[in-house]
């Protein structure tokens, strides 16, 4: 008889997994660098910054 054991993944391995997942969520559109003078907002209103 074999016994199944499940190891709890370490936080570090979860971070590695998450980095891969996040990278996969970055489309080419998302990765276009924000340039100086980009279409940025006119500061709108960020209270108490």
């Amino acid at each position: 008889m074999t016994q199944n054991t499940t190891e709890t993944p370490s936080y570090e391995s979860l971070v590695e997994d998450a980095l891969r997942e996040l990278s996969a969520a970055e489309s080419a559109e998302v990765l276009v660098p924000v340039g100086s003078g980009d279409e940025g907002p006119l500061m709108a209103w960020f209270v108490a910054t």
Partner: protein
Amino acid sequence: MTDVQSDRDVRDGVDALLDRYAGLSVRDHCVVVFSPDSREPAAWLVAGLKQRGLSAQVIGMRPLVDYGFAARLKAAVPDPESFTGRLVVFTLERDTMSHFAQLLHVMQQFGSDRCMVVRIISASREFFEQALKLGPEELSARNATLLTRLTKARSVRVRSKGGTDLRIRLDAGRYDWISNRGVWRPGGFTILPAGEIATYPAGIEGRLVADGALNCNVITRIDTRLGARPLTVDIADGRATGFSGGSDEVRELVELCFRQPHGTRVGELGFGTNSGIGLFIPANSHINERRVGVHIGFGQHNQDRAVVGYEEKVHLDLITDGAELHIDDDTEPVDLADLRVTGAEHPALVRDEDITGDCCGFGYGELTDPVAASAIG
């Protein structure tokens, strides 16, 4: 500090964010929105969620302008009837706070009483290591202690070991006080890092010696710390009349800010209340503003347009390393670094910090010298 200790501090910060600030339960549905500059901090957060057995949908976003973002966000939000908990959206960005309208739309569609949006600016290792050591209850108590006195005061004299000596008139009847404390409320965004109170000074004069850091709503990679080369700014009748000190690159930035149409006007009197933040960091960051000290914001102000009529895009905060407040000339000062919390309730009439638009992505190239620009035009 060793890397091992540093990683431990990051994990402690993740725990604080998920438990103390967001108060997550297994019934909640989480969405993590991140810009590419915040990929690693977002990974620390997602790993913390997975460790708790919570799944999260992740959405990449381009800061400032991302025409596909609204559709990606909509696709990640589940039917409110399909689960019993809250929708908790975390957004992480380094320099900006983008896509306000799209996030507000989701909150309104989902139901603001079941939706928490946590907006993180200055997402970084330092954010998790330093800015979350105090929880919202502690920050709320610290802010309440100060606000209880300051909202009733007519004046405050602010002094610092570095040489700051400012005489300030206060008028809480006319100018709102704002409190950033990391506390969630229905319909509002939770802005992090937290730990600040601020208002608009009815009058201010004296000398500011900024020996902490600067924080400006432009994207810049300069070292913003001022400890080695403090900036001294003389203020009269609510305006900067001159400045000295600072490194070459700091002086260049300050000169550009002060040359804006209303760049020398004092638009904000702010006090950092987050005593968990130990060190100023090199980045152009809100973390530095939340550290205990006074900051004077030049340019853009923090009041309703009907109350303070001028408009300015640029906002430059100059921050001191600690400060003492003589409230109504009380001889016994309040030391921000050694604040004795009174247990007073947080005043209800004080505005919670919020945003009503996108923030802080002003390209450095847009910060032009208006005199030179008009000469060209």
